């Protein structure tokens, strides 16, 4: 038997109470929590995008700076190399000059010594000739005396 009575009104009131309680104590906090999370995630995504753009800009800047530094370093290296080669070349030139000077000095000194030696030897020649002559004379005398015996 289906009876329609005051239960209908009571059920309506109970459902409205349930609706109010659910909205007030359940759905509002849950929706706020979900919205906060979604907003936070959206903010994080936006921040990540900004960071990504910023990192790309920084990477470009970094690459540019690296290129500039590398170019400067290459130029400096080239300059240093050139300077070193120039100094090396100058040094070698100077050393060669020094060596040639030293050789010339030695050669001049040796020539002078040779000349001195030659003159000394030449100075000794008449004395030697005299000595040899005296010896020869003495030898000839001795041989003559022996033949007479």
């Amino acid at each position, binding site marked *: *038997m*289906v*009876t*329609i*009575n*005051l*239960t*209908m*009104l*009571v*059920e*309506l009131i*109970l*459902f*409205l*109470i*349930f*609706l109010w*309680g*659910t*909205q007030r*104590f*359940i*759905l509002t*906090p*849950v*929706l706020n*929590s*979900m919205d*906060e*999370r979604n907003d*936070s995630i959206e903010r994080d995504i936006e921040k990540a995008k900004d960071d990504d753009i910023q990192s790309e800009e920084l990477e470009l800047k970094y690459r540019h700076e690296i290129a500039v530094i590398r170019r400067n370093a290459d130029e400096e290296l080239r300059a240093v190399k050139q300077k070193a080669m120039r100094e090396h070349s100058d040094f070698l030139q100077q050393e060669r000059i020094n060596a040639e000077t030293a050789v010339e000095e030695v050669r001049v000194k040796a020539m002078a010594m040779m000349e001195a030696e030659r003159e000394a030897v030449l100075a000794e020649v008449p004395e030697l000739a005299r000595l040899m002559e005296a010896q020869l004379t003495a030898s000839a005398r001795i041989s003559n005396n022996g033949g007479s015996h």
Partner: protein
Amino acid sequence: MEHIGERLIWNYFPFTNIPIPGGGVNVLTIFNTLVVMALLWGMMWLGVRKLTRVPGRAQVILESFVGLFDGLVTSSLEYPTRDQNRKFLPLIASLFMFVCLGNFIGFLPTHYFEEPTADINCTMSLGMMAIAIAIYCGVKAKGAGEFFGELLGPMWHQEDATGFAKLAGKASALFFFPLNVIGEVAKVISISFRLFGNIIGGAIIIVVVSTLTYNTFLPIGLDLFFVFFVGTVQAFVFTMLTLTYIAVAIK
């Protein structure tokens, strides 16, 4: 089997001889409604007691449920802002939960637990509330003149008609107006009796099959089918119809 559908009615306030007006109250329906409300609030409290940014299991289930109905309401009503759509979310979500658990509660194995939705008073009150809300939303969205003007039929509003055509258009309201009013009333009856009939029908079939057969497992299978499958489907149908009536009224 004659007792099927019968309700325990209190005609007097407890422990008094003061009569309850309006034909008394179905006490088990009200008791089970209170049980359903308590169970739902208890289950949902598990989800909201510790709301964190990284949700726990109960919070995930609750948020999934709320998100599902938020999407349904938004896609049905199509208000431009989120807050406008959100105004209807508590009604729709509460209605589904209430009707769904109301359909399930008869599964509990004592005779004190009966589906409140197997009582026409419950389904009629929910149906009348749903249609009343739809009408209120329609009046609020379109204005009373336009909303109730639609009840006069499509030919009432012919602006370019003249002479006899205009007169016939106005006269057609005599036919369309009662038809549309009956249509609005029929919505209440349709939505209420659909839910009531499905739930009470399932209960009747289970009792009939259990009485007429000596099979142990058949009534259990039928119980599972009618309580959980039909119960869920009917709760969803009731909720979606309410949402559709509101959407039709405001558009």
